[in-house]
């Protein structure tokens, strides 16, 4: 199953996209738990696009493969190079930790922060059981979340 969307994210549109993706994945895989994990990752990735996209546009692709047992979600948007480098650094740091341990540390940190956000990537890693990668291609940042079906704790 391959789903590709191009749109300009707003809170309402992100909500509609998340719900639609979850419904499609649940019907395709007949697995509500996986659909919920994909919904969480979709919401959090698109919220990050909304916060950081330079031109406000986004592309989202969702690929679910029952043969390889993999689900891949990818967002593409234009982002400042320094922000992409910072994102890549944060993801490397996150993946070096146990998911729940890192989530607990992040929760403790955001409790003292006045800034919006800060929890989404850790939530994808810990709650959606997905690993993350970031790639910069020219002015575009691609954030890729991947999980294997049946891997969730």
């Amino acid at each position, binding site marked *: 199953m391959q789903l590709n969307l191009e749109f300009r994210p707003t809170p309402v549109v992100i*909500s509609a996209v*998340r719900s639609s993706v979850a419904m499609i994945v649940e019907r395709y895989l007949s697995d509500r738990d996986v659909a919920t994990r994909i919904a969480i990752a979709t919401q*959090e990735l698109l*919220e990050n696009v909304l916060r950081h996209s330079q031109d406000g546009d986004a592309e989202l692709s969702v690929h679910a493969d029952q043969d390889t047992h993999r689900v891949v979600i990818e967002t593409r948007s234009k982002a400042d190079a320094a922000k992409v480098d910072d994102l890549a650094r944060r993801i490397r740091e996150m993946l070096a930790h146990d998911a*729940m341990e890192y989530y*607990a540390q992040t929760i403790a940190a955001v409790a*003292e922060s006045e800034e919006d956000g800060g*929890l989404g990537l850790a939530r994808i890693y810990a709650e959606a059981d997905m690993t993350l990668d970031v790639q910069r291609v020219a002015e575009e940042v691609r954030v890729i979340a991947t999980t294997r079906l049946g891997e969730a704790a």
Partner: protein
Amino acid sequence: MTSSLRRNEPRFRAVPRFDDRGVTVSLDGEADLDANDSVRTLLEELHAEAQSRKATTVTVDLTKLEFLSSSGIKHFIVWIRNDANLAEPYQIRFLSNPLVPWQKKSLEALRCFNAKLVTVETAGQSS
């Protein structure tokens, strides 16, 4: 202080109930970015109401909450932190629905953030 603690957004609703033990707020719908301000102000008012009533326990019934984004989770984290900073903090009790998959890990993360103050119960059961 009397606060309605009631919310009636297009996709997010909150209904309060008061008793001798404290305050219960039932949440319904989807609390994502669209309802972010509503969740934040609700928890700020709930914190003030709990102090005003000298509540010993505040219960948040999430059994009908289908989704909560990380922005909303952050508001719950700040609420728990603010409670913990009180001289006499109240207990926070979450009622969860095992049929709503996001709740298990999100609520466990909130409980771990402050296990002294936060408990999570499956609706219809007590821990």
